């Protein structure tokens, strides 16, 4: 743990795809125990930033510092082993593996884990997510909302310090969405750090303690939700697009 | 697929799996051979790719003609002959399977056939282990007879008898600088291995190029030949696969060979196949190739009868390989008749004393081991080099240019325009 309580930090992150600069010198730090909402118009570079911060993309410029250690350029599983978990914009499960197996995978990647112990934890996790009755089903046969829950469960099995959730509420039935929010808040109270990306403003504002806004690959606002809501640059970004 | 629940289907599964292992044993043994039953003879050869299936098909047809003729004459030892044909796809492993099946499943008394030396080498191991005579029909590798297995006989000439003839003829014709293009098959390689030392011995310069047997595009290579300096005066192609035709056409249209400055030859068989002229047209004129049968002038009644029968039945001219297999079948029948038995040892003994006039001359098998490839080799296997001097000429009508004692033209090689 670094001294100032910063868990993960992207410093001057730049990422280009062909001629497009998706991230242009973005500084983004998350402190231990925070719950950050990351918003911005389509194509503003949110997902790219998450991909860089979780090791799925190597930045062209800048660096990623995780618990005081520079990790940019290292493969994604190193991040996962250091306590970074994430979900994907379009749910990415192990479709033709059972629900239980989906949770066993991250559990078993932990060093010195025993199959019995992991299975016990996985089942506990399924109880927590109300998915226990589905454990022998193929993941691809779950409904969209159940898949989001399962993906969250898969993150939890890593016992992560920080979770990046990429559009967790998109396409989820309102009832399940409330369920999801409840779980996130529960986990946050239990001490986990979150970064949540979504277009569902209402939900984001409901849960986040801090709001970061991106536009055109740059960070344009960062602060408490109330302050950011009235920020001129943010209003301009949303209105102008 | 829905799985039916219940104990019955579970038992069925167990049965199915154990069946995989047990079913084969049901094919055990087979019934003992009774006197009136036909004598079974095996045939092996390529009938599908990646093997040389075209030649294989011709050989199979010819074998059937011989078997039908033998049966029409009352068979052998008063019993009919029945041929079991096994496709080997040009793969040694399939050859082993085929030979093994013929011997232990079909209980054949002898085997003939095969077109690929590498496959035959695998097959003859099986025959050797079982003591079953096997007559090699169109495989030219020296190693086959050089191994000295008593079961193995060969009616085909071998590379020492074929490729060396090309070498001697090239030297005698005064060619000084030869481009050799061979296909990377067993036949191509062994021909190359025999040809090159002969050229070297006579001081003929050469360059040798290998090619994938599937290739059909030779333009770049032929242009490279054309630009070689000093220029080549002969294009020797060792190619038996389908690519031979585009190669000959391309050499002709690109003005490499045949020209007044460069001759061309192809060894391996395609130039005597039934669709040769259809494929190459003008380009085939002046091409030199070998026939591994008697020259037409030396044809005996059997040759003529076979060619006529084949043409009548299959509506095409038999290739020399076909007549080899026709004769092999007759040689075998003759040996069984003389052995008065279908026992392997007896047939082998009878084969060694073979003195039988077939469509390719008088068959005898050497029992000498010097040189090593001579053992059980038909030493007088006819090989003649011919040169087409007309478009659409039958190989048998083409003038013989080598060896000199049977040549029917004065020249050694006729250049275009001469």
């Amino acid at each position, binding site marked *: 743990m670094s001294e100032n309580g910063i868990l993960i930090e992207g410093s001057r992150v730049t990422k280009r795809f062909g001629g497009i600069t998706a991230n242009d010198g973005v500084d983004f730090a998350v402190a231990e125990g925070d719950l950050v909402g990351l918003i911005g118009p389509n194509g503003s570079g949110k997902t790219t930033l998450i991909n860089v911060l979780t090791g799925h993309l190597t930045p062209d410029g800048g660096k990623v510092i995780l618990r005081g250690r520079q990790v940019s350029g290292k493969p994604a599983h190193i991040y996962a082993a250091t306590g970074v978990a994430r979900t994907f914009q379009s749910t990415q499960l192990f479709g033709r593996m059972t629900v239980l197996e989906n949770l066993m995978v991250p559990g078993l990647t932990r060093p010195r884990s025993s199959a019995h112990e992991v299975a016990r934890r996985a089942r506990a996790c399924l109880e927590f997510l109300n998915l226990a009755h589905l454990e022998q089903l193929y993941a691809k046969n779950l409904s969209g909302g159940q898949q989001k829950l399962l993906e969250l469960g898969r993150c939890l099995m890593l016992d992560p310090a920080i979770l990046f959730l990429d559009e967790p509420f998109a396409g989820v039935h309102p009832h399940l969405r409330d369920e999801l929010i409840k779980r996130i808040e529960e986990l946050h109270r239990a001490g986990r750090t979150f970064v949540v990306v979504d277009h569902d403003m209402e939900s984001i504002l409901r849960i986040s303690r801090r709001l970061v806004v991106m536009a055109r690959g740059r960070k344009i606002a960062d602060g408490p939700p109330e302050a950011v809501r009235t920020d001129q640059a943010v209003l301009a970004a949303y209105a102008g697009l | 697929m829905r799985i039916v629940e219940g104990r019955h289907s579970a038992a069925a599964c167990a049965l199915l799996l154990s069946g995989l292992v047990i079913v084969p044993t049901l094919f055990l043994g087979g019934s003992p051979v009774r006197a009136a039953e036909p004598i079974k003879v095996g045939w092996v050869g390529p*009938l599908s790719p990646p093997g040389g299936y075209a030649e294989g098909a011709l050989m199979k047809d010819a074998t059937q003609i011989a078997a039908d003729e033998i049966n029409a004459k009352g068979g052998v030892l008063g019993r009919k002959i029945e041929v079991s044909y096994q496709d080997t796809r040009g793969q040694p492993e399939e050859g082993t399977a085929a030979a093994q099946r013929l011997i232990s499943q079909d209980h054949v008394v002898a085997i003939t056939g095969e077109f690929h030396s590498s496959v035959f080498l695998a097959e003859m191991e099986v025959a050797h282990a079982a003591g079953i005579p096997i007559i090699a029909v169109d495989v030219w590798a020296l190693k086959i007879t050089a191994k000295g297995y008593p079961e193995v006989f060969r009616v085909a000439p071998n590379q020492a008898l074929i490729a060396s003839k090309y070498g001697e003829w090239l030297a005698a014709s005064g060619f000084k600088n030869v481009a050799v293009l061979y296909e990377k098959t067993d036949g191509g390689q062994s021909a190359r291995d025999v040809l090159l030392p002969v050229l070297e011995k006579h001081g003929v310069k050469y360059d040798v*190029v290998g090619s994938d047997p599937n290739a059909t595009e030779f333009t770049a290579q032929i242009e490279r030949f054309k630009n070689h300096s000093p220029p080549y005066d002969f294009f020797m192609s060792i190619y038996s696969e389908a690519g031979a035709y585009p190669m000959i056409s391309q050499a002709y249209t690109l003005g490499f060979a045949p020209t007044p400055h460069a001759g061309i030859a192809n060894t391996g068989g395609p130039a005597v196949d039934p669709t040769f002229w259809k494929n190459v047209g003008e380009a085939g004129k002046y091409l030199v190739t070998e026939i591994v049968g008697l020259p037409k002038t030396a044809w005996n009644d059997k040759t003529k009868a076979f060619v006529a029968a084949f043409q009548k039945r299959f509506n095409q001219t038999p290739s020399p390989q076909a007549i080899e297999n026709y004769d092999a079948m007759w040689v075998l029948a003759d040996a069984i008749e003389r052995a008065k038995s279908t026992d392997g040892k007896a047939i082998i003994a009878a084969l060694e004393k073979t003195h039988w006039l077939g469509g390719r001359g008088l068959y005898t098998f050497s029992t000498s081991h010097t040189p090593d490839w001579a053992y059980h080799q038909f030493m007088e296997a006819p090989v003649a080099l011919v040169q087409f001097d007309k478009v659409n000429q039958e190989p048998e009508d083409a003038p013989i240019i080598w060896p000199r004692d049977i040549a029917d033209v004065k020249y050694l090689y006729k250049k275009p325009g001469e």
Partner: protein
Amino acid sequence: MSWDYLFIQAANGAVIGIIYALIAVGVTLIFSILKIVNFAHGDLYMLGGYCAYYVITLFGVPPLPAMFVSMAALFTIAIILERLLLTPLYSDATERKDEYGLIVTFGLAFFLRNIAIIAFGPFPLKPPSFISGVQHFGNLIVTNDRLFAGSAGIVLILALLYFMHRTIWGQALDAVSQSREAAAIVGINPRRFNSFAFGVGAALAAAAGALIAPIFSLAPDMGVLPNIQAYVIVILGGMGSVLGSIIAGIALGESEGLFTAFFPDPTRALAYTNAFGVLVLMIVLIFRPNGLFGRRHLRME
């Protein structure tokens, strides 16, 4: 080495490259719509060649109309085959669609190649030339058949490009290739376009077979080598890009020709020509895992 020699080899390479491209374009088209690699493409090409041959020899039809007959025939055959064999690609019960497509076309190739030996006989056949004779351009000699095949290849590819970009059906095809869901939403039935694309791909292969037959002769296993070359081209060109395939086809023809012409060890040059093509492919893939001009490969699921 003279410039003349280089020019001749380059010109020959270009002609053969266009012919390669014609085969590869069909593979590309099928890939971009059906998302499968058609391993039976070389055998459809073989069928097309034989079809043209028999139309010419049995009915006395001139070569060029025979080529169109062959294209129509293969178009129909391919649609039937697609309906019979490829429909599971669109069913959820098929668990691994990429692999299913690969394997079923593998099986189809196996069947076609072996039935062809029985149906057409084992010996190579050659239909009459489109235009007989040769053309001399200085030291460069090109047969009229090659020139014809090259130009007809260009015409057909241009026709395909025109069709893809300028006609309703072509644009619908393009729409399906980009997003099946979106296409379905705007009322295009992707199922029908799968059949259609497979048919057009096969018709192009048939045209290639008919055009090449007088140059290389027909044989039941003639599809083996072009098949591999087609994959090389399709990958180099970026799966699903018609224009990329044309460029890659010509590049492959050129590089193979020039490799044979200039590889320092003359005895091995021809033997390694085919290996050279795939080696280039492998190197490109190592550095660009999605091909040179590739869009990212998308799974069907």
